[in-house]
C-alpha cells in the first residue's frame, strides 16, 4: 500500500472480507473477518514487492486501536469452546465483567481442556470466535472494554 496512491483497498471473497485504509499518519489500518485456517495468499509465484498485507492471521496486524479497548488473545494453538461441555452455560457473555483470574473459555489442545483466564479487568463487549473453531497463537478471542 505504501508505494501506491491507494487510500482504501477492499476485498471480499467467500468466507473472507478485508479492508485496508491509509490511516492518519500513513500507517495502513486493517479490518477484516479472520479465518485462521486459510490465509488469503497472493497467487503470484515470486512477489516482486512485499506480499499482500491481508495474509494469514489478523492478529499481528489488527483493527484500529481504540482507547480503552483491549483483546483477550489465545496463548496456545487448539480448539476454542465457550463452555466446559455442550450442555453447560458459556463461561462469559457480552456485558459480563471479568477479573484477571476469571475463566473466559476453554481451549482444547491434544485432548487436554485448558481453562483460559482473562488476565485483564474489564467488560466483554464482543466474542470474536465460535465454539468449535480452531484458533492459533495470538488470535483475538474477546474484545474487552478495559477497567
Amino acid at each position: 500500500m505504501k508505494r501506491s496512491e491507494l487510500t482504501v483497498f477492499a476485498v471480499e471473497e467467500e468466507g473472507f472480507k478485508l479492508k485496508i485504509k491509509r490511516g492518519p499518519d500513513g500507517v495502513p489500518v486493517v479490518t477484516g473477518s479472520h479465518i485462521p485456517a486459510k490465509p488469503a495468499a497472493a497467487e503470484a509465484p515470486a512477489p516482486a514487492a512485499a506480499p499482500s498485507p491481508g495474509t494469514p492471521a489478523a492478529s499481528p496486524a489488527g483493527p484500529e486501536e481504540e482507547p480503552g479497548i483491549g483483546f483477550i488473545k489465545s496463548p496456545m494453538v487448539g480448539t476454542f469452546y465457550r463452555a466446559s461441555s455442550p450442555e453447560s452455560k458459556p463461561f462469559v457473555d457480552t456485558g459480563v465483567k471479568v477479573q484477571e483470574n476469571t475463566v473466559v473459555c476453554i481451549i482444547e489442545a491434544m485432548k487436554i481442556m485448558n481453562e483460559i483466564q482473562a488476565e485483564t479487568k474489564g467488560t466483554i463487549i464482543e466474542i470474536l470466535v465460535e465454539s468449535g473453531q480452531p484458533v492459533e497463537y495470538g488470535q483475538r478471542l474477546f474484545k474487552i472494554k478495559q477497567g
Partner: protein
Amino acid sequence: MIQKILIANRGEIALRIVRACRELGIKTLAVYSEADVQSLHVQLADEAICIGGPHSADSYLRADRIISAAEIGDVDAIHPGYGFLSENAKFAEQCESCNVKFIGPKSNSIKMMGDKAVAKDTVRKAGVPIVPGSDGPIDSETEAVKVARKIGYPVIIKAVAGGGGRGMRIAHNDVSFAKEFHVARGEAEKAFGNGQVYIEKYIEKPRHIEFQILADSHGHIVHLGERDCSVQRRHQKLIEESPSPFLTADLRKKMGKAAIRAATAAEYENAGTIEFLVDAKGHFYFIEMNTRIQVEHPVTEEVTGIDLIKQQIRVANGEKLDFDQGDVKFEKHAIECRINAEDPARGFAPSPGTIGLYYSPGGHGVRVDSHAYSGYTIPPYYDSMIGKLICFGSTRKVALERAYRALSEYLIRGIKTTIPLHKAIMADPIFIEGKATTSYMEEFLSRTPPDLFS
C-alpha cells in the same frame, strides 16, 4: 497415503518443502512465529497457523503447539526440516504416538545417533573406522588426562550432546588440557543442558567429507555420494561441493560402503548423512551421523538428479526405493555457497534488516534456494542464512566459473551479505586447485584484506 504435511520449520527449507509438496499434489500447512508473518513459505502454503512469539523457544521449538496445530489442521505427516526439532527424539516419539508420520527416521535412531559417544560405539561395532578416543564420556579430570596421553596430543574435547560444530575445544598438552576440559564441560552444560564430554584424537588439517544416505522402511539403504564441506568458519559450513576434489574412486567406494554399514547399524530409515574426517593420507574416520535432511542437500540433488525431499516423502509413505546403488550416477559437479546476512568485512557481524533490491542469478546450471525477496525484512531472531546458491556443470572447472559468474550477478541491496566473500574464494588459487582442508578458511582470511569483501 500422505495428503497433507505440516512444515515445522521456516526460511528456505520450509519453502523447499512447500515446493516439493506442491509438485506431489500434497497440501501444506505452515506453522510460523509472529516474526515470520511475511515469510515467503507462509504465503505459498495452503494453510498457515501462528504458533507463537518471535523467539524460537516460544514458537518453532514448542512441540506441544506444533502437534496441536497438526491436530486442528488434520495433517498426515510433519516435516521437521533441519535444526529446531528435527533431531529431537522426544518430538519424533510424540508424533508417533499422535499418529502423525514424522518425516525422518524412527525416534530410536535419532536417540542412538544423537548421543555422540553412543553413535561412535554403535558404528565401531559395525566395522566403521572411528577417531581414536575415549570409550564414552569421561567425568574425572584425572581419567581424562590419562586418555589424552594414551591417544596422543593434540586432542579435541567434545560435548556428548553437541553437534553442528558446537561444544568443542582443542588441547595440545597436559597443561592446556586441564583448562580446556573444564571450559568444555561448562560450555556444554550451558548450551545443551548436558555437561558430559568425550575425548578424541585431533586430526590436523583434515577434510570434512560426508556421505548422503537414503533408506526405505523395507531395509534398502543406498548412498548418494559425498559432499566435501571443508570450507568452514568456526565449524559452520560455508561452501559444499560434490564430488570431493580429494577422493579417488577407490576411496569413494570404501567410504560409501562404510556409510551404509553405519546407517544399517543405526536401523536407519529416510534421509541422513554420515560425516567423516579424512586426513592427507586418505585415512577416514567417522565423526557423527546427522539424522535429518541437511542444508547442503541440493548439492547431491544436482549431481545425482535425485530429489531428496520427494524421496523423504515417498519413504515416509512406506514406499520402496525405486532405484538401487547401481542406478546412482554422479553426472555433474555441483558447488553450493551459503548466502548469509553477515558482514565479512566486520568479523561476520550479523546484518538483519530490510532487503531493498533483490535480484537472484539464473541461467544454465544455476539454482537458488532462498526465501528472500525485494522488500523482505530479515528477522533478527533466527540464523543469518538467507539463501543458497548452487551452481553445477559437467566438470568442477565449469561449476566454479559458473559460481563466480552467478555471484557477480547476485544483487542483495540494503543488507550486508557473504556474496563478496564467496566470489573471492571462487577466484582463490588454493580453492581452485581443490586443496582446501578445514583449516582453509582461517588461512584465507588471514591473507585477504577485509575490504575485498565489501
